[in-house]
């Protein structure tokens, strides 16, 4: 993991050195850190920073298509926003890219502002995604700190059961359920039942995706 004062990064993958160089110069003028790669392989070797970032990807690369690489990244669970640039784009190509979640599809030569706007959108999106991911991660950490009994009780609580019902289901006293429940709420740092439900739902979401 690389750390720096500004952890925002723009990555560029293009097999043309002139493009790489000029993009680095252009994007650098707005104060963003730019790292360029001549191939997708060299990009994958790089440990991605834990900061907001996006990828500018040439569609036509030597050896492989940028569109295929987009799918590969998704499959690897790498959710970096992608801006495609191409020398000769057509509609089917752009449709495919956008369906795959691309931020923008720019035809070379493009207007500098279009590219910078796209980068901005991509960074915002990545930032939002990272924040959400961080929230989920924290919630997971808290959930993991619960005792098995507390986790059990919490799961039944968010499913809408009353304490009495939970006590019946688990074969314990209603008061015992109450104790587990309030301790779990505390550990989860949930302000309300609604807050707790939201947190657990996010965790379930993530678990679902991982499945």
């Amino acid at each position: 993991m690389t750390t720096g004062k500004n952890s925002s990064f723009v990555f560029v993958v293009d097999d043309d050195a002139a493009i790489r160089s000029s993009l680095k110069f252009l994007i650098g003028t707005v104060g963003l850190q730019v790292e360029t790669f001549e191939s997708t392989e060299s990009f994958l070797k790089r440990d991605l920073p834990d900061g907001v970032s996006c990828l500018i990807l040439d569609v036509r690369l030597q050896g492989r298509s940028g569109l295929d690489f987009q799918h590969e990244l998704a499959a690897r669970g790498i959710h970096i926003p992608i801006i495609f640039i191409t020398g000769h784009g057509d509609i089917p190509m752009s449709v495919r890219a956008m369906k795959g979640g691309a931020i923008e599809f720019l035809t070379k030569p493009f207007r500098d502002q279009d590219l910078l706007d796209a980068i901005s959108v991509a960074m915002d999106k990545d930032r939002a995604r990272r924040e959400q991911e961080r929230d989920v991660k924290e919630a997971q950490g808290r959930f993991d700190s619960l005792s098995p009994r507390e986790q059990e009780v919490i799961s039944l609580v968010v499913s809408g059961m009353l304490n009495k019902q939970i006590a019946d289901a688990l074969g314990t006293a209603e008061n015992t359920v109450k104790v587990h429940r309030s301790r779990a709420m505390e550990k989860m740092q949930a302000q309300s039942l609604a807050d707790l439900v939201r947190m657990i739902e996010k965790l379930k979401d993530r678990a679902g995706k991982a499945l």
Partner: protein
Amino acid sequence: MSEKKAAAIKPERYVAQRTAELASRRSAEEDLRSSEENYRLLVETASDAIVSIDDKGSIVFANPAIATVFGYDPTELIGKPLTCLMPEYMRELHEGGFTRYLATGQRHINWQGTELTALRKNGEEFPVEISFGELTRDGHKIFTGFLRDISKRKQAEVALRTAMDERTRISAFREEIGIALSRQEDLKGILHNCAGAVVRHLDAAFARIWTIGCEGRELELQASAGKYTRLDGSHSRIPVGQHKIGLIAQERRPHLTNDVQNDPGVSDKDWARRENMVAFAGYPLVLEDRLVGVIGMFSQKPLSENTVEALSFAAGIIAQGIERKRTEDALRRSEAFLAEGQRLGQIGSYSWRVATDEIKWSNELYRIYEFEPGVPVTLELIRTRVHPQDLSLYETMVQNARNGGHNFECQFRLLMPDRSIKYMHAVAQATRDQGGQLEYIAVIQDVTERRLSEEALERSRSELAQVSKLTNMGEMAASIAHEVNQPLTAVTNNGNACLRLLANHNLEPEVLRRVLEEIVADGTRASAVIARIRAFLKKAPVEQSELDVNEVISEALALAGHEIQNRGVVAECRLTKTLPRIRADRIQLQQVLLNLIMNGVEAMTGVTDRPHILWIHSGLEESGDVLVEVRDSGTGLGSEADRLFTPFFTTKTKGMGMGLSISRSLVEAHGGRLWASSNAPHGATFSFTLPVAAEGLS
């Protein structure tokens, strides 16, 4: 008949009679003795038999000639009845007549020169001519008759009559053969009638006619009449040189015999004996040294000279008949072929005598023009079918044909009553008839179907070319776009970055220098890409061949035909014929022409105030190079004429800007030049030259 005969032989008989009368008169006179001497001399030396009988009918005298005529000795007849000299069936008749005469004086026959049948001693009957008279001596009537053997004369008469009959028959035969040969029948029918005539008039048992076939190696039986009529028997095919018929054909000599049963040429003698065949006559049918067949006949009677002569005559005219028939059939067949060919090919023919305007049409032409067959054809009638837009062409053609006397060829359209259009292609040849009058012989072909299918073909070809052109262009464009866009993008990016830094007063000279270096490098790189494309085009495998540039123009026009029509452009060609051939790659030359044509067409797309005309002209430049010009009435070159050939320069909204650049490269690769010039008042002309092929110069 006997009257006539009697008259015919009167002088002879008269002498004998008068002599006899004179003799008898003299005997009554003084000089009886010498008379009697004379009489006896006469009677004894006469060649006719002289017999005297008494009124009982008994012979009292017979002269010596009786021996030669009747075979009796004169003395053995004395005392015998006259009837012994006549056949039995006549005796009663004679006796009746004789008795009646004696009683009544009535003669039952003419006494002078009557022809009767007599009986020789050996029992042979023969014709005699009898004259007799009576005289009375001593109260008794004596009858003396002169009997002349006329069997020779009779034979001659019969022969004469037979000959006359034969002549009649033969002239009837000739007549029938003549009729048979002139009948409108097929060859077999004609020859059958001829063979029948031989049987009927020449006493043939049967007669057959073969014709030569199978390239002169075989005789084919065409007709058989009389006793045998089958045509598919063993004699239906006879190889030339085999059997008597084949030998007649080979040697071209007739074979005649009146002794069939001993003739070495007749193979089946048992058959001949069984059928009582006596004579055979076979003649080759020869016409001007050419064998056309054989005629043969068998007869149960000997052949007379007349028969042979008639058969020989018949052979001659039958040969002519066969040949004429064959010629007629061939003519009819070729006429039928012609008609069928015309029908199948939808080709009509006509002749036109210019002086009289006499026009003759073939049936097919009536069909094409949809006129009632047989309607008299006039130029005026034809005119009613000519498409209104082609009328001036038609009239010019007629006028030129009247004046010129040259062959001509033209295409025109017909407008049929149902408003359908037919495309005609006419080729006319000028000839002079025997009188030296100008006459055109022409064929007109209905090329509508061909024309329509050609149009359909051109359309699909042009669409196909369009597709493949687009595919190629698309691929090439994608490749060029990528290659050229890379440096262009880099230049743009760098330039934009500089502008941003400049705006922020943050552009350090060192940075600027480095970036400008990059910009220059990228610009150079972009132009290197173009140079590489041009080099590629130059190096592209070319298949140079000798071409007629006009052909390539036509092909390019066909390829662009659809587009030209769709955009309402009229293409007008002024192509110089007899241009020397050029050496070029056909496809590349087509591409150049297609490019210039499409440019011209597209340049006129927005023009609304004048016709969209694309002129294409081919000719020879002063330098000897072939020159092609493509001129449009479009928007013209404007101020940008000098940039036209710069790669990626385009005035079109959807254009690569590569067409003219590539075209120029292609033309230059062929050793030619390509340039543009403005037209006054409108449009542009793109011209290119190509050097003439080496052989084209000579």
